[in-house]
């Protein structure tokens, strides 16, 4: 791979495969993602808190779903995206893809944790308990364990390439197992009819609620891009510390 990649003449799919180019472009994009995050969050939360009507059964406590549901969506999506980039990096030996995967993991784990935490906050007033071993809750909890396992493995290996490839294999094994785990947990849950609560009975949603939820999802997307790009930039600098372009950049006074 070129140490100091020249600006490409035509737009190509592999444009961001060179860490130096990714670094330059993501630096320009990150502020915009933050702006998008702020705008979508303000709009989503405004509609969620002030426009959407109060639920006649759950009162105002239901409003946490505007954070809870998008976080849960993101937690699952990011795992798949992470496994995809990790596998891509492993198969094609593309370093940038492996760096994306590593940069995605903490954000995915964070969203999983947020989904679990807000779920507990919602469960207390609605179900009267912080936690039930419901199929969804249990699966989400296991997803958090998978994220932690991935992060722990990649952090434990010092060699960059081995860490990336071992993480890729683990993420793939996890992705293959997720459906098996989910269905076994669901089966286990229906057999143990201890809890009478069902998290699956979704009542009809008012349009404004859906709008708010979608806006919050966009906000989380923008946030993920901003944070993951920032983290990927740090990983790029760390792994490319020996290359000319990083040294040259650091020598400049602005460090830009």
């Amino acid at each position, binding site marked *: 791979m070129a140490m100091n990649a020249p600006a490409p003449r035509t737009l190509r799919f592999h444009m961001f495969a060179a860490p130096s180019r990714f670094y330059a472009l993501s630096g320009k994009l990150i502020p915009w993602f933050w702006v998008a995050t702020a705008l979508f969050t303000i709009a989503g939360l405004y509609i969620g808190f002030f426009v959407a009507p109060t639920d006649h059964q759950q009162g105002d406590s239901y409003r946490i779903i505007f954070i809870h549901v998008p976080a849960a969506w993101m937690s699952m999506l990011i795992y798949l995206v992470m496994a995809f980039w990790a596998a891509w990096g492993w198969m094609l030996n593309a370093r940038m893809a492996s760096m994306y995967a590593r940069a995605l993991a903490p954000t995915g784990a964070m969203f999983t944790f947020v989904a679990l935490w807000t779920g507990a906050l919602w469960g207390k007033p609605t179900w009267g308990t912080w936690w039930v071993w419901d199929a969804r809750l249990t699966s989400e909890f296991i997803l958090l*364990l998978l994220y932690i396992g991935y992060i722990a493995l990649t952090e434990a290996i010092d060699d960059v390439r081995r860490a990336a490839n071992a993480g890729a*294999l*683990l993420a793939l*094994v996890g992705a293959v197992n997720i459906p098996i785990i989910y269905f076994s*947990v669901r089966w286990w849950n229906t*057999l143990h009819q201890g809890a009478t609560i069902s998290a699956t009975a979704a009542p009809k949603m008012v349009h404004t609620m859906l709008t708010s939820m979608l806006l919050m999802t966009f906000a989380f997307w923008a946030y993920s891009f901003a944070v993951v790009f920032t983290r990927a930039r740090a990983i790029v600098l760390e792994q490319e510390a020996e290359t000319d372009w990083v040294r040259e950049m650091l020598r400049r006074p602005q460090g830009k």
Partner: protein
Amino acid sequence: MTGALLSVARRDLLLARRRRVEALLPLGFFIIAAGLFPIGVGPEPQTLRVIAPGVVWVCALLAAMLSVTQMFASDHQDGSLEQMLLAPQSLITVVLGKVVAHWLSSGVPLVLMAPVIGVLFDMRAGSIGTLVITLLLGTPILSLMGSVGAALTLGLRSGAALVFLLVLPLTIPALIFGTGAVGAVDSGLSAQAHLSLLGALLIATLLGAPLATAAALRISMD
């Protein structure tokens, strides 16, 4: 292929026999861990009977993870693992041989010890029989899944602790079907559905895990 598989398995079993105490340590852990539960939970036979399958299964999971790091560790240290990677036989065969040896030396003792634990927990004869069958189907899954974790963490300082974190979430389906089968028998139902699923899980793991382990060994030895 069978010849290579058997010779790898025989070699590992011979090595395990030479270090008999070390090979039996997971079994000791299994007995102690399961034995602590009645002391912690209380000696009421009613409670013990309910938690018995879960306790036996969870202790088996932990005992398997405890021993699985040894599957490649000593071969990695003395360099013979590198020779196995270079050998003309496929790496999957070698992995399968090692898994077979691990199962025979640490899985089978757990299966044989399970009825004794079951008696200590006041389980009924029918439930004990089902428990043994589920462990017979389930412990190979643990050895296979464990081999992936052991290969991924090969030579790492924190490898032993990492294996628990990496592999245990993936063994949850086996735990669910294993304990579910005993639970079904306890409540007067047929355990066949659970056992079929556990068998399906074993077949799927048998097909997938050796490939993953071989790939992980190549990554770790790169």
